[in-house]
């Protein structure tokens, strides 16, 4: 028994040490370290990253296709994680370009950000960016966070705007991504701006089937779903209005390492942004459900 015991103890201690060692390091080092190893002719490839949800992957594929067509050597490193994770990748140079959203990026960089209207948010974003990062033109396409309920719930409780939830919230469960727990445009903001105190918050994957299923089946009553998510139309969900503009404008914008910007890259990406609208993005999101995002991106870029 004693020998077995010390083995168990030893293993557990080794585990603790290994884990605390991980905690000190950079989580991107292990998985995200897909270094650009010479894209031919000694020119270093531009590494395009993406967050871990389908739309961002699609946008990254669109950037990759458009830049590739223009003869810029590109590599992709998709599905990295949430903003909290991939921003570290931009810092350490393991990625160079990523599709971003104006409002959330501004809030990430500057917690005191106040603007909510598209142009103003974009201006505020420009001010908040550190020197080593640059945003190019933003697209008209906008993918906002939203609070969504089922048609049934909306009718039953007479919900039109987020604020209408206030008297009912103590009996309701809110579902959303884990980062909503601490993010201002999440549980804290809903409480501060609309006075919503949900009976509980259930952390689920961002924009995932899990969230949609849980909302459909009543395990959660209100959910954070992105406005371009095809599930909203498919399930007749109701997007609650946001009169206080808690969720700021979220125009799609390319975020790139300043040192990687060239006039050519700028022109190509600005052209993509000029042609990207919320409608065609939502359409593409429907296609992505049963088609490879790279193919959908190809089609869009070919039609530019």
């Amino acid at each position, binding site marked *: 028994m004693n020998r077995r015991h010390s083995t168990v103890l030893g293993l557990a201690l080794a585990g*603790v040490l290994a884990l*605390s060692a991980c905690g000190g390091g950079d989580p991107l080092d292990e998985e995200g370290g897909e270094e650009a190893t010479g894209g031919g002719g000694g020119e270093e490839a531009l590494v395009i990253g993406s967050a871990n949800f389908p739309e961002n992957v699609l946008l990254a594929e669109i950037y990759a296709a458009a830049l590739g067509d223009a003869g810029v050597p590109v590599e992709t490193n998709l599905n990295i994680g949430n903003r909290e994770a991939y921003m570290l990748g931009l810092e350490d140079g393991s990625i160079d370009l990523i599709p971003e959203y104006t409002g959330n990026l501004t809030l990430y960089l500057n917690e005191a950000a106040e603007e909510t209207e598209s142009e103003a948010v974009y201006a505020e974003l420009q001010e908040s960016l550190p020197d080593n990062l640059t945003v190019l033109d933003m697209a008209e396409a906008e993918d906002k966070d939203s609070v969504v309920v089922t048609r049934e719930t909306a009718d039953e409780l007479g919900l039109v705007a987020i604020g209408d939830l206030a008297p009912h919230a103590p009996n309701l469960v809110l579902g959303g991504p*884990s980062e909503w727990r601490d993010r201002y445009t999440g549980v804290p903001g809903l409480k501060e701006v609309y006075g919503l105190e949900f009976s509980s918050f259930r*952390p689920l994957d961002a924009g995932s089937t899990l969230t949609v299923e849980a909302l459909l089946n*009543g395990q959660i009553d209100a959910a954070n779903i992105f406005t371009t998510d095809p599930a909203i139309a498919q399930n007749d969900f109701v997007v609650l209005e946001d009169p206080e503009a808690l969720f700021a404008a979220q125009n799609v914008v390319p975020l790139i390492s300043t040192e990687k910007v060239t006039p050519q890259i700028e022109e190509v990406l600005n052209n993509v942004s000029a042609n990207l609208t919320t409608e065609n993005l939502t359409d593409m999101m429907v296609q992505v459900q049963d088609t490879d995002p790279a193919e959908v991106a190809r089609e869009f870029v070919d039609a530019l």
Partner: protein
Amino acid sequence: MIATIWAWLTDPANWSGAGSIPDQTLEHLRLSFIALVVAALIAIPIGLYVGHTGRGRVVLVNIVSAFRAIPSLGVLFIAALLLLPRLKGELAFELPSLIVLVLLGMPPILSGVYAGIQQVDPAARDAARGMGMTGQQRLWRVEVPCALPLIFSGLRSSMLQIIATATIAAVVGLGGLGRFLIDGQANRKYDEMAGGAILVAVLALLVDLVFAALQRFAVSPGLAPAARR
């Protein structure tokens, strides 16, 4: 880093209220124990049968190795997507995780029970037969007591694996210590993440100690390792 983890672990705010350390630890233990009990209820009878009769040995050994190769996270997602639309309330979240933990917990128990019964001294078995004991009597009065050390070691390693793996339940929105790992990562709070990992390790060790104590009471002193030689 060590200092911030320690600060997180000792912050009183993390020790009370909903979603606090005690809260998630209890939830973690609750899920783990349910999984262990279900796994034991399935695995022990099968292990006893195969060990006692010697029938189906090859099948059992192969099933045990096959089960060990099941990817927990994959099964969890498949189970969650299949069951979520079909079940109501909390069960829809808990059942997928329980299925994964039970699948994971069964192999060590199966092999422990089977090997334990199998390795009972043939002389003891013959003596029991010679005294005129029936098959049932031999199983319960001779084989099981003699096999207890190995049965316990199967249960203990099953429990360790279940506790360590129960963290993945957080991926599909359940509570437990995995919440600290998943939410900590999502919110860039690495102290919370590392603190959660340490709590899981400590919990696994403590529970193993409890099982060790139980084993000491349950196993006949005649079978204690020191007395064996």
